[in-house]
Every structure is written in structure tokens, then in C-alpha cells.
């Protein structure tokens, strides 16, 4: 079993990395490029538990350490 976690900067937080990537894409000639947000992707391998227990545990970990709720949002799936 594996948790796939995506952490992204909150919209209110200035994201200079996203802005820089956006500018690069536009300069390269890609059209219709809007705002870009650069976040993080984590995979956590899990063993020896039910899916619901895994979900609860990962949600807790996301809230406490894997993301900072002041500046980031997170979402994840267990598969």
C-alpha cells in the first residue's frame, strides 16, 4: 500500500518559483499559459494496516509535518 501526497503553496502565498516557471514557459512559446504553482510530491509506503487507518495516519502526518498549514495545502490518495 502506498500514500501519494501532493503539497501545494496556498493561493495567498507568493510563489516565486511558480512565477518563474510560468515566465519560462511563455518565453519558450507555449501559449495560453496561466499561473503555475510549484509544490511537492511525496510517496509513503505503508504496510500492516487497513486503508482507513492508513488514511487517518497520513492525514495526521500531512497536517503535523508533511505540510505547513500556514502556507500550504495538501491532498493525498491511498492505493
Amino acid at each position, binding site marked *: 500500500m502506498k500514500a501519494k501526497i501532493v503539497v501545494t503553496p496556498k493561493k495567498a502565498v507568493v510563489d*516565486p518559483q511558480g512565477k*518563474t516557471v510560468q515566465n519560462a514557459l511563455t518565453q519558450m512559446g507555449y501559449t495560453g499559459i496561466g499561473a503555475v504553482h510549484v509544490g511537492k510530491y511525496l510517496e509513503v509506503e505503508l504496510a500492516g494496516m487497513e486503508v482507513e487507518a492508513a488514511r487517518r495516519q497520513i492525514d495526521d502526518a500531512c497536517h503535523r509535518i508533511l505540510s505547513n498549514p500556514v*502556507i500550504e495545502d495538501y491532498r493525498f490518495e491511498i492505493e
Partner: protein
Amino acid sequence: MNFVVLQFPASNCDQDAVHVLRNVLGHSARLLWHKEHSLGDAEAVIVPGGFSFGDYLRTGAIARFSPVMHAVQGFAANGGLVLGICNGFQILCEAGLLPGALVRNRSLQFRCEPVFLKTATADSPFTNRIPEGKLLRLPIAHGEGCYFAEDQTLAGLRAGNQVLWRYVNAQGEATPGSNPNGSLENIAGICNQARNVAGLMPHPERASEPILGCADGRLVFESMIQALESRPGGKTT
């Protein structure tokens, strides 16, 4: 006074802080490894600069769960003085001991240069010795020092007089040009509501002796010493 300077894997300003407190200011200062569970006889705690745990995940995110931070939480809750410098500021924010967060510099550059700071209030254990109107010239060295907090948190900081230092130009004006990292409202350092926990991105410990070009940083440590000595129970060293 008995200072404790925390040491995490990849702290790198810990020795500088001990040097200033011990050799420049003549107080007791000892290093404390992050795996320790007790602060012992500490009267004040310095959370030093560096790149604790390689800045992995987020700056300060892993250090804040080190065993010693549990002791720091209790120490702070009992009114103990805690100062976080640079990575120490980031750790204290991650730990929830200070509001807000430090994010990537708006320029995406690692900025390593002297800056001017204006002290917003002398009403704190970290600023009481700083003469009104005096600008501090201190070095910065960080890639993630852009102070961010939600509007409501910022309003609370203003209302509570919790902003201690702002980045300014040589004339003492907080301008966009004098803001090295994009911090909201040019904020360089803050304290908590109870005023016993503070953090700042610039490095007072790197500018506390004339031989280093500037001794303005002493004023921050001297303020802490003055605050400790004037507490009930008074001077112990």
C-alpha cells in the same frame, strides 16, 4: 546568566552564539544537542542559524520535532526567554511558538549581505537596550526568509506590538528596495504575544564585535541579559 544554545544536525551558527555570549559578554553559555530532553538550569535559550536536517521537507520542519523542542515548548510556556536566529526563527515558526512562516525569498536568490534594521519597539526582552532611532546593521544569509502570515495574523502582530524589527534603508525608511526577501511589511523579526519568544532572520551573533565590522548585534543579547537580570530573583551570575 546561563544561556543554552541548541545544536541540531547542520546547525552552523551555534558556536558563534556561544562565543558572543561567553567571550564577548562574559556569561555562561553551553551547547545542547537536539536529542536532549531537558534544558537543565537554562535561563534563556538560543535556537541558532544553520540548515537543520538539511532544510529537507521545509526549513525547520523536522528540527521542530526533536526531543529538545518539547523542553523548549515547556520552557517558553513558563515565560522563559527564547530567541531564534535565521534557521532558529524558521524552527520556532514551524513549532507554532511564533506565528506565520518563512518562505522562499521573492527573488529566488540566496541573499548574503549586510542590512539595516529599524527596531519597532523597545518594549521587549530582546530590544530594551536598543536606543530609540538607532538602526542596527546586521548581516543576513538566507534563501528562505520571506516572512508570510495571513492578514488576520498580521493584524494581530500589529495590534499586539509584536513586530520587533523591520528591514529599512540607511535613512530608516521601510521601502521595497530595502526589503531583501519580500517579507510582508518588511518584517525582519517578531515576538509572541507573551513577548518572551522572538525570532529574526538577520544574525546579531555575527556582528557583536568591532573586529567583525559592526557590534550592533550585541544590543540584542544585552537586552536579553538586562531582561533576565531585572526579573524577580535577579542576577544569578
